[in-house]
């Protein structure tokens, strides 16, 4: 019952937020209509990073426990992550074409999302090149964690070396939020709602993977006993 209410609440709030993003929130000077992408682009980039962190977390859990279930979770996180990294790249690139007059400029922000894409790509090509199950799980977990180490570098150090044209990140160094009240409401509700929605999707995928694993183990013990 509670879950059902939650679902309806999520649906209504989401509808309101999307409508608000297009009608209610004021535009920013200099950006015009292109302001609105922030309500969708930033949450997507955030989801890409969040799933990257989740993948690293599950990889760590796998190495600790050697339980293949965690490897499956890490894989699901990476699948979701690559999807959002692509979405964030595409939305950002379209926006950049309008404002900076080119789809790609190697701005530090563009570089970091590109690296994220590369890491995801490398992760999946490594997986497909390893046949043995436990070896695949182990080595891709190690790679996930190794890549995880390089991410802070792109977040904190690269923007210091290179000048960026990207609008101030939402959580900037001063801890101030450079937005009007109505923009802020729409932005944060979009961020929170998307996080909730996609974590929910992730959880469904996770359950699916878990069931598959339980089924597999059941069949394995069956053949084990028959022999």
């Amino acid at each position, binding site marked *: 019952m509670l879950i059902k209410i939650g679902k309806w609440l999520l649906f209504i709030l989401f509808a309101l937020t999307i409508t608000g993003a297009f009608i209610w929130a004021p535009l920013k000077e200099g950006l015009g209509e292109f302001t609105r992408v922030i309500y969708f682009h930033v949450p997507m980039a955030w989801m890409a990073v969040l799933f990257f962190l989740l993948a690293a977390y599950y990889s760590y859990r796998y190495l600790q426990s050697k339980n293949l279930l965690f490897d499956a979770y890490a894989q699901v996180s990476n699948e979701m992550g690559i999807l959002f990294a692509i979405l964030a790249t595409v939305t950002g690139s379209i926006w950049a074409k309008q404002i900076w007059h080119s789809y790609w400029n190697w701005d530090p922000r563009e570089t970091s999302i590109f690296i994220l894409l590369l890491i995801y*790509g490398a992760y999946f*090509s*490594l997986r497909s090149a390893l046949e043995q199950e436990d070896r695949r799980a182990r*080595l891709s977990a190690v790679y996930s*964690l*190794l890549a995880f180490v*390089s991410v802070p570098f792109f977040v904190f*150090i690269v923007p*210091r*070396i290179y000048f960026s044209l990207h609008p101030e990140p939402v959580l900037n160094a001063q801890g101030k939020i450079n937005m009007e009240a109505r923009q802020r409401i729409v932005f944060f509700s979009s961020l929170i709602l998307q996080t909730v929605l996609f974590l929910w999707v992730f959880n469904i995928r996770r359950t699916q993977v878990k069931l598959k694993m339980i089924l597999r183990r059941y069949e394995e013990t069956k053949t084990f006993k028959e022999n």
Partner: protein
Amino acid sequence: MKQTYLILIKDLQQEFKTRYAINAILLFAIVTLSAVSFAIGTFTAGEQVLSALFWVILFFSSMSGLSHIFIREEETQTADTLKLVAKPVHIFLGKFIFNLLLLMVLEVVLVPLFIALMNFQLQSSAIFFLTLLIGNFGLAGGGTMVAAIISKASAKGALFTVLSFPILLPVLISGISATKKAAAESALSSAQSELQALFAYSVIIITASILLFDYVWNE
């Protein structure tokens, strides 16, 4: 420590007899450098382009040789033999130092040739050589670790570059930036933030590799 040294000596002996990695890496560097030099022709490229070209050549040359150290053990079926006499951390360190030496040999050849062929002028050789020195640690650390990972996979060669690139890109970015400074400015302090970044990243990647290597090596 003694084990690390012994593994390094063993790998050097092997390399000395086959000269596989050194040939691959040096020839790759020379071929790429001549191709680039030929393509650019007589006009002189700016320091921006040259710094980037230098690191691109360095990066891809090292990609052709750094993975050999682990692939060799896997292909000759000596990985298990080694596993029976050594602890993982010594194996990693021995092979890391080998790759470090390999990169230094590469640079001894590549740097003078690059300066001569591309007419690359350095304002501050201190920045340049410091960048190379620290950069070597990062390249060798990340490269050795990825080599260990891919030595167990199929399609090793292509995979090595694909997997190394995101891990080593921080080294490339700060390396290129510092090399530009070396060509443009003379004060060592002007490249401070790049060198700090390079150093920090090298330390991080080597530490992470040592911590994670057990999981790669032990089945």
